[in-house]
């Protein structure tokens, strides 16, 4: 059966190849044709020059593994969004209704993200005659997972358009971009439409009783609660009083962005990425070390009159907000991270440091991890540059 489907598809692809060739009727859509073909079958291309042996790993596989690693937070996010919605509207929260409602809320966001992003991807690929990059499969899913479930769909489209065009394509496409496109998109939405991206009224989507319209109700995220903390209270006690104990925040069953609430799911994804050799463990471990060390340093500065975030147990930094998601999936994007191992340690470490600094010292931006990753994206080339110079110094010259 599979063999027959295979040969049918192969025949269909081969039949249409000429129409999409350089001179064919649909020649301007050649990148789309190539992308479709290589989605089904990796093209058979023989090596023309030495070496005549090539690794089985290609970029499609590479990106597929990232997608696979995104599945735990994605699937968990669907359940969690539905669960929070049912809880907020006082309905009984069974597993199946929660998943169904979650799908109903999340899938439109994901579909719009992919559709709008692919439109730009195909447009640029067709005009600039470069192949459609598999990297967008990841970007298109990463972006929705960082959004609140109540986000208006048009903002999703605007955001991903900004991310793909300004974040990536104007630099020349995948491999040449400075900033992570998904984070660029999120940063744009965050600053352009703060009403829909922050505060405590955007994180739980409920269905309006009159129809399919999705409405937002109040449901504060842990980080939003901490922003309200008076100076005499500790963050830990406030969070626990609101029902956000460390274990709840670690598992992720609380209102928040679609897919980045659960540190546990992000951890499992990160383990998968590292084990399969796709993400650099140096960035992840470096980030966690940086976060914890800076958290401890902040504790030393804390006094009775100081801001409550200074005194928080560093472990809370790991579990709250999007740090786990950011360090596992955003910081490890190889294009915008440094390429050298030493530089990757520093890069991850500084992301951890900056995340804490932004969270603690600037309560206006509780989501420090997004800004710190974007900030370190700028410096990753510099880190590589320094690493390369140090590498040169070690060589016995040969000219």
């Amino acid at each position, binding site marked *: 059966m599979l063999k027959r489907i295979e040969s049918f598809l192969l025949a269909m692809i081969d039949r249409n190849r000429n129409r999409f060739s350089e001179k064919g009727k649909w020649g301007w859509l050649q990148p789309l044709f190539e992308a479709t073909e290589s989605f089904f*079958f*990796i093209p058979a291309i023989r090596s023309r020059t030495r*070496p*005549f042996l090539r690794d089985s790993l290609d*970029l499609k596989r590479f990106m597929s593994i990232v997608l696979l690693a995104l599945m735990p937070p994605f699937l968990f996010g669907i359940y969690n969004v539905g669960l929070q919605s049912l809880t907020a509207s006082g309905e009984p929260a069974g597993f199946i209704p929660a998943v169904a409602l979650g799908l109903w809320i999340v899938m439109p966001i994901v579909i719009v993200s992919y559709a709008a992003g692919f439109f730009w991807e195909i447009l640029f690929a067709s005009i600039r005659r470069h*192949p459609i990059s598999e*990297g967008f499969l990841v970007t298109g899913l990463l972006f929705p997972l960082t959004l609140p479930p109540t986000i208006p769909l048009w903002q999703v489209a605007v955001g991903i358009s900004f991310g793909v065009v300004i974040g990536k394509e104007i630099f020349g496409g*995948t*491999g040449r971009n400075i900033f992570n496109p998904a984070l660029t998109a999120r940063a744009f939405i965050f600053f352009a439409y703060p009403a829909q991206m922050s505060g405590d009224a955007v994180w739980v989507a409920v269905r309006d009783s009159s129809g399919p319209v999705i409405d937002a109700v109040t449901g504060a995220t842990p980080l939003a609660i901490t922003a309200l903390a008076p100076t005499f209270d500790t963050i830990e006690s406030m969070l626990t009083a609101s029902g956000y104990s460390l274990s709840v925040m670690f598992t992720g069953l609380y209102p928040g962005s679609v897919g980045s609430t659960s540190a546990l799911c992000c951890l499992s994804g990160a383990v998968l990425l590292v084990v399969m050799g796709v993400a650099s463990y140096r960035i992840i471990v470096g980030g966690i070390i940086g976060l914890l060390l800076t958290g401890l340093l902040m504790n030393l500065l804390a006094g009775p009159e100081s801001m409550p975030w200074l005194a928080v147990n560093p472990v809370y930094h790991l579990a709250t907000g999007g740090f786990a998601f950011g360090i596992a999936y955003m910081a490890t994007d*190889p294009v915008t991270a440094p390429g050298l191992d030493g530089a990757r340690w520093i890069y991850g470490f500084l992301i951890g440091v900056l995340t804490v600094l932004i969270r603690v010292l600037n309560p206006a931006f509780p989501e420090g991890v997004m800004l710190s990753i974007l900030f370190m994206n700028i410096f990753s080339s510099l880190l590589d540059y320094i690493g390369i110079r140090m590498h040169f110094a070690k060589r016995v010259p040969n000219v």
Partner: protein
Amino acid sequence: MKTIRIKKSVRFNLAGRPSVRVEDRFGVGNVAMVCDGIPFIKPRLLVEINDRIRIGTPLFEDKTRSELKFVSPGGGTVTEVNYGPRRVLESIVINIDDDEPHENFEVLSTAGIASASRDDIIQRLLDGGMWSCIRELPFRNIADPGLVPAAIWVNLDGDDPYQPRSEVYLKGTLSFFETGISVLQKIAEPVHVCAAADASLASNGRARLVTHRVSGGYPANDPGVAVYHTRKTPEDNRVWYIGGQDVVRIARFLTIGKYPTEKIIAVSAPEADDCRHVKTRIGAPLADLVAGAYDQALHQWITGGIFTGTTRSKDGFLGITDASLMIAPALRVRELFSFLRPGFDRPTYSRAFLSVFNRSPFPIDTDMHGEERACINCGTCTRVCPVDILPQFAYKSIYADEIEEALKHGLLDCVECGLCAYVCPSKIELSQALIAAKHQYFMERD
């Protein structure tokens, strides 16, 4: 005996390694002198079609260094002179006579070698067309006899799984090998002899000749890798090297006085399970080396190793430097959604397939296994480069025409092993870019 450990190298587990069986296929008919494997020469033809020539008659010389002569691997009639694009000499085909005549060179006894001068030996090797076996690092050009290198490296084993094994070609030729080493010691000292750490030395008493054991996967036994890991000063980069089998040939040439045409070739056609060594002659037709026909639409005929070789047509001939012939399936069978499959049978350096749990040898093919994409800076190439070049950054500096930057990256240390291009998930021709830049630098310097 010193040990050199090469950590950054790849141990391959591939099907079709030639067995130690040696088959005699010393064919008669046509042989050819193929020029395209000889680096950096501009041939000036010395014969014409229908000339009667002997084994050892000069066929062409290098235009810029006319002392470099290339002699005929067969005695008979010149039947074809083939030119490639821009009228570059490609090959000269010779139809062999029944009573193959050969040029007689002056015989030098073992004692004579000990008393001969360096210049005398070099002159004999130049006249006999044997000098081109001796190469110079870093450009791998034919050594300049006017210079004295810091050392000569002899590497007995190749790590490419499809190269002749030293235990095969040294069987019965060990005395020649010893003589060859003493010839090399006349030319320059010291002479380092490297053997792979896993090759057995006990069998034929060559242990006393070996100075270095090299442990590691491919390409640990490349002379460039050994030099990179043992050098102390920039002067140590200027060394010569020669293959183990050519040491034997040099000794044969000097002590017998005839151009040695015999050579042991590793032949692998894994699909037909036809993997062995073949004793044949230099310039033999490729089709003579294998049993059975292989369609060129489905197979690639590769001489000189799967990592460093070239493709040839099935009507082609062995080049003078080639020591192996590999017939590999050209393309992988196209599977639906192959990027989603567990990939239990897909050889890979990465950990992205379940094949990491598969210990059996993998069948090979010469498919790219993907399309070319932009570099995503994953850094996999930096993990395999045996001489610590950062290939993705060196490649980008070449791409930007920053040759000075590429030189700082260690462009000239590149051993041209091809591992960076092998592992690249974006299928970028990294090693080809480095090799081309190196060649261009060679052509343009002073």
